[in-house]
């Protein structure tokens, strides 16, 4: 297992840095996702770790030794590409054998390792097939197997699920995560899909404009976002503005105590996730009144657009056990601890 340390890594194509002095420490066996919109530098970062892009500045260390000057083919990485990049003129077996042949592994051992890895990705019996004879999900698993069979120091995945349909994508998330845990390989995963990053990763690195906006566990990122941008990127969020007054911010939902040494009168933005708000029938308890503007039913959940009495709009997500009609008056309740301060407004 390998520990990866990225230090002040920068890539500049000549029009300002695409990746700007980012530093990440990845523990042995950790699953890290680089998450961000397209053009945020996540793929460039992955390519620099792989060696397909030269770093303009900074270091990439595998177990302490800098690999920035090491060419891709000597870096001992396993990479899964977005389009899988399986060799179309080779059978599954030949595809898997390729990396082992490069490492001068004996024929007998190659056979043994291929049988083992095919078993691991549940493709035993597919060795003689050509890539074009496999479904997208199967090709994906061959690509994973090809990257893992060489037992690389680090596994790199570049949006590997982007070309799969929604149902298969969810299955593959779990499949990849389980496989990674079993193998115990240090993994860097690039995606623009926040749900993918959250469900699979030990830690998520959120990137915007070539910089790291936040590094943290999925729950850190979701519940304690470092900025408005992060809060909005990793899911729906209601932004409630208010002034600090005696250590509290007065909101339409009640007073929210804020910690820290915020100056009196500071304008604050508070993040409130839609599912943190409770919805109750009018007259059934404590809360503030709101009117249902519209609702969107999606099976397991219902999304409501509400208007509070002061005219503010909030989005609320609730289980469909109790349904509220459009135009109905309801009670909303949001516990103070579910508000997360995003910092002073500019």
């Amino acid at each position, binding site marked *: 297992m390998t520990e990866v340390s990225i230090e002040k890594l920068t890539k500049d194509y000549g029009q300002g840095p695409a990746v700007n002095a980012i530093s990440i420490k990845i523990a042995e066996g950790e699953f890290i996702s680089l998450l961000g919109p397209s053009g945020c530098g996540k793929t460039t970062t992955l390519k620099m770790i*792989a060696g*397909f892009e030269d770093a303009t500045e900074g270091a990439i260390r595998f177990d302490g030794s800098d690999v920035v000057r090491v060419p*891709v*083919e*000597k870096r*001992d*990485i*396993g*990479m899964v*590409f977005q*389009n899988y*990049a*399986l*060799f*179309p*003129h080779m059978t599954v077996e030949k595809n898997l054998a*390729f*990396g082992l042949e*490069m*490492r001068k592994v004996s024929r007998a051992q190659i056979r043994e390792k291929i049988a083992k890895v095919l078993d691991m990705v549940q493709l035993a019996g597919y060795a003689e097939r050509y890539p074009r004879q496999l479904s997208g999900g199967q090709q994906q698993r061959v690509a994973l197997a*090809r*990257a893992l069979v*060489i037992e690389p120091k680090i596994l790199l995945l570049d949006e590997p699920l982007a070309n799969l349909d929604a149902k298969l994508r969810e299955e593959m998330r779990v499949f990849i995560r389980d496989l990674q845990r079993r193998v115990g390989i240090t993994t860097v995963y690039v995606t623009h899909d926040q749900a993918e990053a959250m469900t699979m990763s030990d830690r998520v690195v959120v990137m915007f404009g070539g910089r790291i906006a936040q590094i943290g566990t999925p729950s850190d990122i979701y519940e304690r976002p470092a900025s408005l941008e992060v809060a909005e990127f990793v899911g729906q969020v209601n932004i409630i503005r208010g002034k600090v007054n005696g250590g509290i911010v007065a909101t339409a939902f009640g007073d929210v105590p804020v910690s820290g040494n915020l100056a009196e009168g500071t304008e604050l933005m508070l993040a409130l996730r839609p599912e943190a708000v409770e919805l109750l029938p009018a007259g059934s308890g404590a809360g503030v009144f709101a009117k249902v503007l519209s609702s969107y039913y999606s099976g397991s959940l219902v999304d409501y657009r509400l208007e509070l009495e002061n005219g503010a709009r909030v989005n609320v997500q609730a289980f469909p056990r109790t349904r509220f009609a459009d135009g109905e008056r309801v009670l909303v309740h949001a516990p103070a601890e579910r508000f997360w301060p995003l910092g002073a407004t500019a």
Partner: protein
Amino acid sequence: MSKPFLTLYCLIIYAFLLAPIAVVVIASFNSGAFLTFPPQGFSFRWYVVFFNNEVFMRAIRTSLWIAAVTMVISGIIGTMAAMFHVQYAGRLKEAVRVAMLAPLLLPEVLTAIALLFFVYSVGIGTQTMFGMIVGHVLITLPFVFINVSASMESYDPSWSMAAQSLGAGRFTRFRRIMLPLIKPGVIGGCLFAFIISFDIFTISFMLKGVGMSTLPIQLFDYLRTNFTPEAAAVSTCSIVLTMAVVIISEKVLGLRIHRF
């Protein structure tokens, strides 16, 4: 256009294209002393004369040898140029293409004269086959380039990247991944180079050394003074030879030729 009409139209076009070849082949079996059509009687007489004609035999050997050398050189340079064109040329892509196809646009005779001046002014001269082979390579290069470029366009660069991530160096990536996948284009291009080189007249005529002769030149020379069916026999043999090259390559190398 209705289908029967279209079929008829195609048949007429084919007849128009192939009739002269058929005439030559039929005329070669003439038993008379002159190249006439329809032939007078059937015999292999003129083939016997041809195979015993040391001058023609030497010319055929020279042509085959030049075509083979040209094919190898054109194949290598053209493939490398196509790789550069598709993968690395970037903004220069169109410029590279035009430059590579330039020999097709220039009249062959201009290229020949230019080369003739060149080989004499640098002191190479025409005692060796050097100038002639350079000329043949120039003319055949665009065909290799076009064919290989076409198959390079469907080559996904991430295949090379995947091979590299698995530990393959530059040469291994080319040999094990790229070459097998662009093979139809490379072989198709090389065949074109061979066949076209075998057929080149102007360049060979200008750049040949004294006493040297290729098949087209020898044939031309022969027809200036003779008018026997031997010429038809020579032509028939060269048609069979080129067709044999194509068919054997197709069978042996499993070639799919898309554009013929």
